[in-house]
Each structure stands twice: as C-alpha cells, then as structure tokens.
C-alpha cells in the first residue's frame, strides 16, 4: 500500500497537468459547499480503509482526484496543528511513518526527485493557520483568473519543487534553474515559536556606519565598469553590538548585506559563543563578502546561539547600477569621472534554501535584489510557507517610501510571512554628498533607516503593520537597533504603493 504522502504526490501531479479544469472545478466547489462536503466525506471514508481504496475511488474523475488529495491533506492536519486532536486517528502506522520521514528525511514523500512534501504552515502558523482564514484571491477585488494557484487547494501540505526557474543573472541573459531545498535543522531549543504569546526581540546591527567602513571599489574588466563592496574589519564593533543586544534580550540578530569580512565574522561568532549559555540570542544572520574559488560571493550566513554556522544563502541576482544610481552613490572611476553603469562583481548562487529552525520558525533569506524578484520571493510569499523572510541590503537609508518597503509590503500583503529588511549606513553618506552637491538639502538623510519590520495583514480587509528603526547618521551609538515583535503597536502600512517619491538613489 502506498503511503499517503506518495499518493498525494501522484494526485498532485495529475491536478497540475489539468490546471485549467482544476480551476473551474475549484470555483464550482467554492459555490457548492454541499457537493464539496459530499466529496470530502466520501474521500475521508475511503482513506479510513487505506490509500489503496482511496486511489481506486479517485480513479480518473477530476472531482474525486481533488477530493482524494484534499482528504490526504486533512489527514496531515494534526501534524500541522499546535493542538492535540481528540478524534479518531485513521492509519496510525502511516502517521508514525510520516513523522519518521519528516524528521529523518525532511519530507513526507519517498522520492526526492519529486521535491519535498512538507507541512505548509511554519511553526508560527501552527496555532493559527491564516491561509484558510484569508484565502488568496478569492472574493478579492481585482483578482485575476491567472492568479489561481493549485497550492491554495491545500491547507496542510506543500510541495517544495526540486528546482525553480528564476530570472536572469543579468539583463539580457537567459532565465536559469536553481535548486530549491527545505532544510530542517534539528537542535536543542528552548523557545516555542508556535506559542501565540511569543514576542521575540529582533536586533539589527548596521555595522558599516561611516562611508569608508564599506569601501566601494571600482574597476574595469572586459570594457565594462564593475563595483566591488569591501567591508572593513569591524570585529570589535560587531562583538560589542552582539553583547549589547544580548543585554537587551534580543533573540534574532541581523547584520546587513556584505557588512562583514572573515575577521568580523569570526568576532561575531566569538561574541555569540560568549552569550550562548545564559544569553537570549538564538540566531544571527550575517551578510558577508567572501571569496570562493577565487570569485567574490555575496552571502548571508546563519549562525546558531553558539556561533556555529547553521546554514547560508548566496545572493541569486546581481544588482547592476544604472547611471542615476551611480550618480546617487557617487561612483566614480580613478579619474573622478562619474560612471554610467556599474556591474556587481559576484558569483551568484544556484540554490535557494528554506530553513526550519526550532527556536525561530521557518526562515527564507532574500539578499537585496532577490527580494524584488518574482522568483523566489513572490513564490515564497504567495505560498505562505515561511514565517520569516529576511532581506539584508546595502543601500541608503530605509524609509517606508523606498523600494524595500514596497517589496516587503507586497510580500507581507500577498502572503503571511514576517519580513525584515536590515541595512547598513555607509551608502547614506554617499547619497548625502550627492544631494548636497545638487542643492537637494531636503533629501539629505539624517536619521538613517537601518531596519524595516513588517507584520503581514491577517485578512483582505486588513493592512500590514510596519516598524522603521533608525540611527542618527552623525552619531550612530549604540550601533544597533532592536524591537520586540509587537505589531499592534506599529503603524499600519497604507494599502497600495508607498507614498512619496523614490529617491534617485533607490533601486
């Protein structure tokens, strides 16, 4: 007898092959709850007899195929709920096997070539599965028929595909495939993210405070201009910030894009280790610049409470600057000439990872430009599969009117993940120099936005809440910001496009 997960994968493939018909069927069922109830009941009855009976019943009929897949989805509900289900538990042996597989293999299905069948809700969503309360694109104004996604037919299960087609590394290049991986990290934990009363403290360390803390090196290669940000060794500053945030009770500490080199990273690891036994920090995410096989990589490294590396994400898309951006960031060649364009000199990544972290929940990292791309960021958000989407950036000061707010707001509107953007301060000095040179004193940044925290909306009628944390550019002491995740106290993000003009320095 097939295990329920493998039968689900088979049914899922059939549904995907007939998406147009499935969309029509779903719409019919959304209008006919009686028929949906009958189908659900019949499918559940067959599943009680085993997956063979369910598979036979599903046959080739589309409505029964969908009902069978949804019955399996419902069978997994107790694993996705914080509450103990006090009801009959059909197929207990299969339930045990499902638990074993998830813990052991990080997926319920047998064949990894199919991808990973996982629980759709992250740890934060175990007490409240918002997907069913605020279903996507149903009854929402302006919903496009094309927005139908078969994923939304399932509350408890999600297929993480083995690969994803993402945009070109650079304009003009072809799209490319990357690997996608759900990685469940098993570790001793003492925080319970599924507890609705859990209100973690998030800290952000901009680290690069002065302009020369993050030097932007320019050079020419193959007839083109390139830029290469290089962080100074700021290990002592980083270690003091970690200690300061530990004293403030921070649970999750973020360092921006390319803010740390190897020495600084080592200092952060030591500082984490120093607080590991009695301190509150459980994870830190550090944007690093490093060389791999002679090529620069822009990565975010996830460290655990002891400073050990728990995972990493390499930037997937380059951020090539146009002439406006070169002007805004005052990027000049060795002769002092402003550049017309400058390409980011990095080797991009070929893998995207969803991390399941016991003390934090499910985390995805989209470095800077990666947040603005449909894949993987929009895929993550619409799939409602992660608890946290974190974006380290290197930019001039964050505001609720900048592109990061727009993209972060869109992600938190479309899905139900918390979004954090962490920024450094170095580029704001360059931006201010440009503003002053052009008589645009009103645009000069004094309080530099170093963190944006988004709490997603809970319904179509609601609004995301946003917290923008700043440090004065002239005196950034203590060198970090932090906030307890209590979005009820934060301002609501206005619906639609953020107001205010995008500064020219923005992407």
């Amino acid at each position, binding site marked *: 007898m097939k295990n329920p997960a493998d039968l689900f994968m088979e049914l899922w493939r059939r549904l995907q092959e007939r998406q147009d018909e499935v969309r029509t069927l779903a719409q019919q069922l959304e209008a006919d709850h009686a028929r949906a109830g009958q189908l659900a009941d019949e499918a559940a009855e067959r599943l009680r007899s085993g997956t063979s009976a369910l598979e036979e019943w599903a046959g080739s009929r589309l409505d029964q195929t969908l009902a069978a897949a949804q019955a399996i989805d419902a069978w997994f509900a107790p694993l996705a*709920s914080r509450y*103990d289900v006090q009801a009959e538990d059909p197929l207990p042996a299969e339930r045990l096997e499902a638990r074993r597989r998830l813990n052991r293999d990080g997926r319920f299905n047998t064949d990894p070539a199919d991808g990973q069948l996982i629980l759709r809700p992250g740890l934060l969503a175990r007490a409240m599965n918002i997907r069913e309360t*605020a279903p996507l694109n149903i009854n929402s104004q302006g919903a496009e028929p094309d927005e139908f996604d078969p994923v939304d037919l399932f509350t408890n299960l999600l297929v993480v595909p083995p690969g994803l087609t993402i945009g070109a590394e650079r304009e003009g290049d072809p799209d490319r495939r990357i690997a996608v991986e759900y990685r469940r990290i098993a570790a001793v934990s003492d925080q319970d993210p599924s507890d609705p009363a859990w209100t973690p403290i998030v800290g952000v360390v901009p680290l690069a405070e002065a302009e020369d803390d993050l030097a932007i090196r320019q050079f020419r290669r193959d007839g083109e201009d390139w830029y290469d940000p290089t962080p100074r060794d700021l290990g002592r500053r980083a270690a003091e910030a970690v200690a300061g945030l530990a004293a403030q009770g921070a649970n999750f500490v973020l360092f921006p894009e390319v803010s740390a080199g190897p020495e600084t990273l080592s200092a952060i690891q030591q500082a984490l280790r120093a607080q590991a036994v009695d301190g509150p920090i459980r994870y830190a995410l550090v944007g690093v610049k490093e060389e791999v096989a002679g090529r620069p990589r822009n990565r975010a490294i996830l460290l655990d409470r002891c400073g050990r590396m728990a995972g990493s994400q390499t930037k997937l898309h380059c951020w090539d600057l146009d002439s406006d951006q070169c002007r805004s960031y005052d990027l000049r060649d060795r002769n002092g000439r402003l550049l017309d364009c400058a390409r980011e000199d990095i080797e991009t990544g070929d893998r995207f990872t969803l991390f399941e972290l016991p003390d934090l929940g499910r985390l995805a990292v989209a470095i800077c430009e990666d947040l603005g791309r449909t894949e993987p960021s929009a895929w993550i958000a619409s799939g409602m599969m992660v608890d946290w989407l974190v974006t380290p950036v290197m930019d001039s000061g964050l505001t609720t009117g900048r592109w990061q707010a727009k993209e972060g707001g869109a992600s938190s509107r479309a899905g139900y993940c918390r979004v954090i953007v962490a920024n450094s301060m170095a580029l704001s000095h360059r931006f201010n120099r440009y503003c002053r040179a052009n008589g645009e004193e009103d645009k000069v940044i004094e309080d530099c936005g170093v963190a944006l925290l988004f709490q997603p909306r809970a*319904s179509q009628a609601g609004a995301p809440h946003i917290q923008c944390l700043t440090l004065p550019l002239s005196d950034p002491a203590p060198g970090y910001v932090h906030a307890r995740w209590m979005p009820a106290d934060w301002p609501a993000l206005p619906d639609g496009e953020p107001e205010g003009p995008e500064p020219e320095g923005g992407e």
Partner: protein
Amino acid sequence: MSALDSAFQRLGFQRLDFQRLGDDLLDAIGRQDWAVADAELETLAQEAVAAMVANRRDDLAALARVAARCHTALSLRDDPGGEDLHRQGQLRAFAVMIAAARGRTPPRPAESLSASGTSAAILTALKSGPQTCPALVEATGLSAEQVGSVLPELRAAGLVRSWPAGRLTVNALQGKIPSPRGGEGDFTIKAFGQDDSVLLSPKAASVQTAPDSR
C-alpha cells in the same frame, strides 16, 4: 520577581528551582561525579513528565531553558570525554521530549470553549449552518486573526468539523456542544438544508438549531 512568582508566593508556594538543579547538574559533570549527575538528570526527567501530565506550561518552559542551557554549556566544553558526551546526549533527548510536549497543547474543555469568548461566538454563529472562515469573520465581527486562532482549537476539541470547498474551508458544528445553561445540546446532523439526499455521514455536521435555543 515575575508576576507568576509573586502569585505563587501569595499562595504560599515556592516556584520550583529548576535553574539550581541545572547548575548542580553542570557542577556534578564538571567534577566528574557521574552518580550525582545521573541523579540530577533523573530528577529533571521526573519533573518534566509531571509537568507534561499536568500540562504545566510555565514549568515546561523553565525545564526547556534548563535543558538547553546545560546542553549548550556542555557542547562548548573543549575536549569533552565520553562520559560528558553521554550526559550531553541525554540532555538532548530530554530537550527534544520537552519541545515535543510544548509544541502540542491539549485544547480547552468543551465546556470552557462554549461558555464565553471568541470560541463561544464562533460556535453560536455556526448554529445557523456551515460557514467559511471569511463568513465567520463577517458573522461574528471578530477579526480574521481571532477566528483563525480559535478554529484549530475548536476542531481539536471535536466541536467543529471542517472540509474543503475548492480553496475555501467550510466549518460546521459537530458532536455534543455543552449548553451554557448546563447539559449538552445534541445537534441534528443534517447537511445543507432541505434535501436528505445530500446528507453527509454522521460525522459530517450541519447544525439546524441548538436545543437550548428552541
């Protein structure tokens, strides 16, 4: 002193000092007194099981902190011996067990869920028939977050049954809902109104009227 500690003191209780237990365990391991270390571990295990059985969430949280703290301290030791690693492994198993217990909450009793608050409002709204979650938000005036928070508990308690309708989830009352006036209301299991030909199995539920509202 936390509010909980104060409350305990007013009642004449002393909160359990798990932190000291953890310190003593680490001390015992540090001086390689394995008999004492194992005794401390056994006490921790006994306390954990007692807290699980009684669903004492605060004690479970405190025990989780002790386990993680001791495990972390051991994992940072340079050149640990086999006996150290053995206790570290036991602490890991202990922490995993506590985390599993903390991740699963027994739903409140049916009487409590139906007595008052958001859960009672949802149960009342469902007396008029099956409803989707957005419809429940509209019917009750509760926020989507409130409805989304309570429905999983109502399902786990066996008071609400749900089924998918396309991308929507439909909810209906199920089983015996305790009446606010005492006793139980045995709800008619009749699906979707008029036609018996669309009756669901006895486990599927759609409530026509609650007995105490007749």
